[in-house]
């Protein structure tokens, strides 16, 4: 299988044609896997690295696609969804992890199942020095709040790693973050 990685990781004005929009590839397989596992609420702060998942969720009539003003809203949303018997996922960039810290006490204290996909910045090949502080702190911060981190570097790891993460979250009730490295998603070009 050939995986095509979207070339432009910048947000583009909606009217502009730009970048190479893949219609197949690991991002699409990942979306299908989330849906096969019964996830019906997809929450996010808009992010280029999660662009395909966000676009697919917006086009999916059976999913609530929830744009947030800050990532911590998504942590609380996941807890509420679980109270109602639904499964949710939070998509964010590594910089958003810092916005979630105290809210994660809700997840840890009540043992809510928790799944988040994190597109990394301040990581492999990063060209913006502002991104390194939170990018490099992402794993220690999550670990300190009881969130298990699993990291994906290569496209062929996406499906098996996500299957493992969803088992840990939804079968074992753990809090799990899947880190999509910049080696996988591409460093933002400057």
């Amino acid at each position, binding site marked *: 299988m050939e995986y095509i990685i979207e070339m432009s990781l910048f947000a583009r004005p909606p009217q502009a044609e730009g970048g190479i929009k893949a219609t197949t590839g690991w991002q699409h397989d990942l979306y299908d896997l989330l849906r096969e596992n019964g996830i019906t609420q997809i929450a996010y702060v808009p992010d280029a690295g999660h662009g395909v998942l966000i676009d697919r969720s917006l086009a999916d009539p059976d999913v609530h696609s929830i744009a947030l003003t800050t990532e911590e809203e998504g942590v609380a949303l996941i807890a509420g*969804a679980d109270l109602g018997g639904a499964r949710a996922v939070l998509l964010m960039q590594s910089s958003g992890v810092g916005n979630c810290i105290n809210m994660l006490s809700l997840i840890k204290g009540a043992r809510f199942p928790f799944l988040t996909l994190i597109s990394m910045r301040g990581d492999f090949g990063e060209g913006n020095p502002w991104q390194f502080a939170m990018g490099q702190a992402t794993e220690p911060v999550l670990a300190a709040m009881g969130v298990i981190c699993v990291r994906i570097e290569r496209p062929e790891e996406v499906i098996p790693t996500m299957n493992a993460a969803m088992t840990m979250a939804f079968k074992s009730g753990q809090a799990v973050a899947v880190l999509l490295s910049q080696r996988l998603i591409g460093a933002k070009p400057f």
Partner: protein
Amino acid sequence: MLERSETVPALIGRHEDFLIIAGLGGTACDVGAVTGDSANVYSLGGAMGAACMMGLGLALARPDKRVLVVTGDGELLMNVGALATIAVMDPANLSILCVDNGHYGETGWQKSHTSLGVDLEKIAVGCGIKHTRTVATKSDLAPAARVLREANGASFVCLRVKPTEAPEFKRNFDASFCRDRFRAALQ
């Protein structure tokens, strides 16, 4: 000014008609006094700012039930962007009751922004929430209670009360136990 111990029960009415998320501090005690800490309630003891978004996740998960978030002005202000997110999603079954005493009662009664000119109903309106009310007198209670029960879209009621203690109520602080209890009762 209105008294919270009289007006919160009047606005909630028959609590069994709702799934309730209660914010930390005074509003958890308000709700506990009305419900006896029953299984249709999930009360926060921390994670300040979570209540409204927990309500949204629950409302989207259970469109067949009416969800009521009862929270305070301090908790709401900490994550006020949640009102914007909720307005955009506009679930037909989510209502928010903010018990606004203008103070942080838990930490020594410091004034909150709502004592200093911030109007939470105007923020809700500005976010795009279509069904809003401010309750400042007893005659406002009945129409606001109807909004909380019947609005076909996200609703927001700001209840202005005196800065007095919430009713004393000892509730269960075991967040995990309360999660299991809530989920089991909802099956």
